[in-house]
């Protein structure tokens, strides 16, 4: 059993030259058989394994990851955590997820650098102000926090913004104070360590290459680059590879795979206390604890499995940055990367049983799945353990596309690159 992290342990290790730290999780070889195999060791897969063990007492669980923990989207996102959705099916779910975030560092005994610095959505037209007021009311009716900020309040709190630009003047904003950021790969490590302590095997560098079924179609196991593993239940949590891995079990999905880029500048003194989004051009920005400005905008816009973006979106993002915060124009970009997104046809995620007995699906997180990590693990573990949706995630079922119950938060229709 590994020791609890604490300030005393940190002091002791400081005095000993940090020679006493042990690996935070084991590196086991796969067993012959598990009760549940989770495919994908991103945030969602690891959270699912943790809640399976903790909430449902199912500890004979393997998380099978083809690369290393934190190498997927969980370590590539812009780390924004929020619960400012409007449709009831989404609202319930993200609200639960945010509540779980709030106690997560203590629960996992891991510093996730959770920072509820507030998320401010800027409105640039009267119509947007009205729309945000409607959204704020929906959020408050549901019990979450929301405030409408006037341009004067915004000028006082976020002085670096260009508020009176002729084209995109800031008319007001929706402030969600409990929103903020968290250390993205830390979330994977925290869940991994906590799941491992409950007996979950985390198997890295192990790619699932086939999903095996009996003549009745029931799941019997998976084939991997480290050999066959028997199991009656397989949970898919492979984010940007959902379409492909689901195909191994003959599942065709309402998903298109797209590409999203992100950017970080050189470090500077604190200039931005909140997460700010620019509604005129779909752009979001925050300042990391190291001082770099972390930002991103829209998808590149065409199907892609490369985690590598093209220059037009770099230019578009830089233009949005300059419209919102002209003062950052002389900064240099330190790093710039891309990730592969499983975009659904209605822009909302899927947590679901499937028509294949023993196969469970968690995917379609589009570019908003980081904030969902705890809630997703919570609901998916329930779905796998009980063979039915969790009430909080019930509207995220796959069959909503067959029954006309899509959750199209953006109202753009079945066109994934617009969500």
């Amino acid at each position, binding site marked *: 059993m590994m020791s609890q992290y604490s300030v005393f342990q940190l002091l002791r290790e400081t005095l000993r030259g940090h020679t006493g730290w042990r690996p935070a999780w084991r590196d086991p070889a796969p067993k012959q058989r598990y009760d549940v195999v989770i495919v994908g060791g991103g945030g969602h897969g690891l959270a699912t394994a943790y809640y399976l063990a903790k909430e449902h007492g199912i500890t004979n669980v393997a998380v099978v990851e083809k690369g290393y923990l934190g190498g997927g989207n969980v370590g590539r996102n812009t780390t924004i955590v929020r619960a400012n959705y409007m449709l009831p099916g989404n609202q319930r779910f993200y609200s639960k997820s945010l509540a779980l975030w709030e106690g997560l560092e203590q629960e996992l005994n891991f510093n996730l650098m959770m920072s509820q610095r507030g998320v401010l959505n800027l409105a640039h037209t009267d119509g947007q102000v009205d729309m945000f007021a409607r959204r704020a009311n929906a959020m408050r009716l549901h019990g979450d926090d929301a405030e409408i900020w006037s341009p004067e309040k915004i000028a006082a709190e976020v002085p670096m913004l260009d508020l009176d630009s002729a084209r995109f003047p800031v008319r007001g904003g929706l402030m969600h104070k409990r929103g903020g950021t968290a250390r993205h790969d830390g979330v994977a490590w925290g869940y991994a360590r906590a799941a491992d302590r409950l007996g979950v095997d985390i198997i890295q560098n192990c790619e699932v290459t086939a999903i095996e079924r009996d003549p009745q179609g029931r799941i019997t196991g998976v084939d991997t680059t480290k050999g066959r593993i028997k199991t009656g239940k397989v949970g898919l949590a492979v984010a940007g590879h959902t379409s492909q891995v689901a195909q191994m079990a003959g599942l065709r999905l309402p998903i298109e795979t797209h590409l999203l880029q992100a950017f970080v500048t050189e470090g500077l003194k604190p200039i931005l206390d909140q997460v700010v989004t620019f509604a005129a051009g779909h752009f979001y920005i925050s300042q990391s604890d190291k001082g770099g400005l972390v930002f991103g905008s829209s998808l590149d*816009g065409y199907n892609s*499995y490369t985690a590598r973006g093209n220059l037009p979106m770099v230019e578009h993002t830089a233009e949005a940055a300059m419209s919102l915060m002209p003062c950052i124009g002389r900064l240099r970009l330190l790093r710039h990367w891309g990730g592969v997104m499983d975009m659904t046809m209605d822009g909302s995620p899927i947590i679901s049983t499937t028509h294949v007995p023993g196969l469970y699906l968690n995917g379609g997180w589009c570019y908003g799945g980081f904030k969902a990590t705890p809630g997703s693990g919570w609901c998916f573990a329930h779905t796998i353990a009980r063979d039915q949706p969790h009430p909080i995630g019930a509207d995220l079922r796959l069959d909503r596309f*067959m029954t006309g119950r899509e959750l199209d938060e953006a109202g753009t229709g079945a066109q994934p690159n617009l969500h």
Partner: protein
Amino acid sequence: MRIPCPVCGARPSEEFTYRGDARPVRPPMDSSDQGAWVDYLFFRDDERGRIKEQWQHTGGCRAWIVVDRDTATHAVHGSELARDAAEGGQA
């Protein structure tokens, strides 16, 4: 990424609007086959590799075209007018 427009030649991708997989065909407007509509609207093969997809040259001649492009590399292998593709071109 440059997209070869059969009318205008190779043009930067940002002149185009993307629609997606060119294969799904809309059921007849008077069809009440719900499964066929659901399939057409929502379900995709979403391959990793070469696919045929519809783009419109909105910033140019406005033609709808079918582009043969690789989703794993972004390599573009060719294109033709969507009308020709629908009439049984090599697409």
